């Protein structure tokens, strides 16, 4: 029952973010209950433990046209690289803007990283090519850094549709065949239909567990009240 309520928490979060730019849906992955070997060896009570992990589905979300010059979406694998000065974050949310100094930043204020560090944009018409080349009034000023990550298991989610490496040693490599689209943002990849089906399954599993618990309760009740009674 506890496992089902965790699943429900995750489904509720997916549904809440059905319209969040660059959001990637989560799902709960569970194994069966495993015997705790050590417990048996010590002659103690058989312990049970369940393995749970949250898997983030990194599949492509739909591209939503916005016509804003600083909105970019990735088509294909990879992430934009952004930094708050200390930590490096990876995101598929390409809704960028300018800071007071003309630096390209995210909505949270993290600096967007180019091939040569932070990107400074002078005033003018910004065009971003399919390979991430940024030009202002036809003059190249930088290139967006787009990387793919080898060890996606190491990533944890943080607010703002961003991912950060848990161990701090993300294995970056160049993204293959990724196209950068200017004037688009990547929509959330949450599929409402799938989440609703998931919610029905959660509900039924929860009910079944509750029934099992009640049956167990009745058996115990019988044991306590009926055994030992002289007919």
């Amino acid at each position, binding site marked *: *029952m506890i496992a*089902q*309520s*965790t699943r*429900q*928490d*995750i489904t*509720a*979060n997916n*549904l*809440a*973010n*059905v*319209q*969040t*730019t660059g*959001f990637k849906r*989560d799902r*709960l992955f569970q194994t069966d209950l*495993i015997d705790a070997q050590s417990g048996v060896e010590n002659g103690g009570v058989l312990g049970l*433990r369940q393995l*749970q*992990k*949250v*898997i983030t589905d990194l599949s492509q979300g739909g591209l939503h046209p*916005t*016509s*804003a*010059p*600083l909105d970019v979406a990735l088509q294909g694998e990879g992430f934009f690289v952004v930094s708050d000065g200390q930590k490096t974050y990876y995101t598929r949310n390409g*809704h960028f*803007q*300018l*800071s007071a100094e003309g630096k390209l930043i995210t*909505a*949270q204020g993290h600096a967007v990283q180019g091939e040569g560090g932070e990107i400074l*944009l002078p*005033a*003018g*018409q910004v065009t971003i090519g399919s390979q991430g080349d940024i030009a202002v*009034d036809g003059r190249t000023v930088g290139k967006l850094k787009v990387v793919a990550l080898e060890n996606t*298991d190491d*990533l*944890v*989610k*943080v*607010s*703002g*549709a961003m991912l950060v490496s848990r161990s701090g040693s993300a294995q970056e490599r160049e993204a293959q065949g990724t196209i950068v689209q200017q004037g688009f943002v990547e929509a959330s990849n949450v599929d*409402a239909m799938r*989440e*609703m089906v998931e*919610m029905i399954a*959660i*509900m039924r599993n*929860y*009910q079944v567990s*509750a029934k099992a618990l*009640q049956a167990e*309760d009745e058996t115990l009740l019988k044991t306590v009240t009926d055994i030992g009674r002289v007919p």
Partner: protein
Amino acid sequence: MLKSLSTAASGMTAQELAIDNIANNLANVNTTGFKRSRVEFQDLIYQMVQQVSPTTQGTETPTGLQIGGGTRAIASVKDFDQGDPLHTGNSLDLMIRGDGFFEVLLPDGQIAYTRDGSWKLSSEGKVVNADGLPMEPPLDIPEDATAIMIDGQGLVLVRTASTPEPTEIGQIELARFVNPAGLESLGKNLYAQTVASGEPVVSTPGKDGLGTIDQGYLENSNVRVVEEMINLIAAQRAYELNSKAVQTAQDMLGIAANLKR
């Protein structure tokens, strides 16, 4: 369990805002120079329910158990697509074809920016907008002017009763921004510069990436009704989906409460 309730509630609140925004777009479907906006969402902080830990079999759980806390609206973003031209024939109705904004002087000395080119003449012969705010740089039309001609580059010529030859009396300037989506809406079709929009580039129309001016036309709102209706359906359904998550959570709590007879 209770987390799922607040998560779904945050989703419902966010969709409410999205619907408010769509209502405002639809209300301004005929507002001259209006630019539609959309709401941008962000996921909330994630809670580590279960840290990455070694299992009894000597392996490590690959990722901890991280559960998100819902969503919130972080920004409303303007889309500065060109609106449809509307022919009026009025000599002070101007439309910018392409990028750029007209500038108006606010009473506090600040400059505001607008795409609404329905200019009027004040009692002193100044060119002002519908709210009486003067155009920047100021443009004065002589009292005896019989015709006003404004070309694509913003050059203003007038013909008077005494001088039948057109004479130049001023030049209209436009401003553009690197990131117009970052401008702040002041209402009354006016925008103010912000940190996100960047500094304005002021020049004559047709230069430095600025659009040209069409006299006798107004720029209609760029709200597309069909698109807004689709967004409305999506927002309403998302609201409904989140309400189902609330309902499921409530039903689960009900079952848990009924375990004890």
